[in-house]
């Protein structure tokens, strides 16, 4: 573990930029390519890289396994919840136009929330799967 100094420092330098890029892909999806799915993968890749370089316990200090597993259903709940709220506010399921008085702004908010739901589920799933794989010793 002491020998991979270059790896550790390079990884440390790269990690914040990876998270930045994930959020860029997430919130810039209105204008460029990307969205919740890609951003979720990139965010999960950041945690996985951290786990590979610094060991599983260090990664689980950043994102506890419990949290990752909790994120898996949470994203679906966010997504479906936005749809249900739209229904409660008098529109159809997943019709974001009714979320705010201005229908275009309502759409923007709806898309943003839904993309966050996708991000949460995808990154949670990837991190949880990585943890369970990496947590098993050589059989």
């Amino acid at each position, binding site marked *: 573990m002491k020998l991979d100094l270059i790896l550790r420092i390079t990884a440390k330098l790269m990690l914040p930029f990876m998270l930045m890029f994930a959020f860029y*892909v997430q919130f810039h*999806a*209105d*204008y*460029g*390519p*990307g*969205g*919740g*799915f*890609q951003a979720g*993968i*990139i965010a*999960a*890749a950041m945690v*996985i890289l951290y786990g*590979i370089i610094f060991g599983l316990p260090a990664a689980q200090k950043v994102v506890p396994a419990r949290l990752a*597993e909790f994120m*898996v*259903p949470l*994203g*679906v709940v966010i*997504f*479906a919840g936005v*749809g249900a709220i739209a229904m409660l506010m008098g529109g159809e*399921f*997943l019709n*974001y*136009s009714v979320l705010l008085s201005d*229908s*275009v*702004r309502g*759409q*923007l908010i*709806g*898309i943003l929330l*839904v*993309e966050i*739901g*996708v991000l949460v*589920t*995808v990154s*949670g*799933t*990837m991190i*949880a*799967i*990585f943890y*369970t*794989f*990496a947590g*098993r010793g*050589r*059989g």
Partner: protein
Amino acid sequence: MVLLTLMAAVTVGVVRQRNLFGVVILGGIYSFMMASVLMVLDAVDVAMTEASVGAGISTVLMLSVLYLTKSRESVPHHTPLLPLVVSVITAGVLVYGTLDLPPFGAADNPVHLNTAPRYLEKSIEETGVPNVVTSVLSSYRGYDTLGETTVVFTAGIGVLLLLRGRRRKRKARPARPERGSAK
């Protein structure tokens, strides 16, 4: 064309390679080339997904699986004749199917005439999102994306359940010989 040729070469490499580490790396290379092909076809979103999922996450997951298993493929016991026949027939049927498809990229293809023009014309007006891919994915086709998210959720839960179940069994196994030795 160059990319497709390289991809074919990588596929041959995957088939001939017995060292699974090499196979995993070649799989990653294949995914990156697939992403480049998708870039050439102007499908940037799909290219991004392919690069991050296919080349990134899957390679890492395959490597961690490799850590758990042997790193050399065992020599097959049966002849590869039957699988070969099945894949050749499947490939033939698929190629036959593509003959009926409309020409690639023509403006009067059915896909471009159904709902696409409406999305393209009304997207900014109705959702305020300049990137039509995003507005279609999460607003017009919100149901589909909700379904996709549910698929990811279901798959994740399934994999987690399978792996967890195994671990519990392994914990239970050493308990039995202990009891036996006590007798």
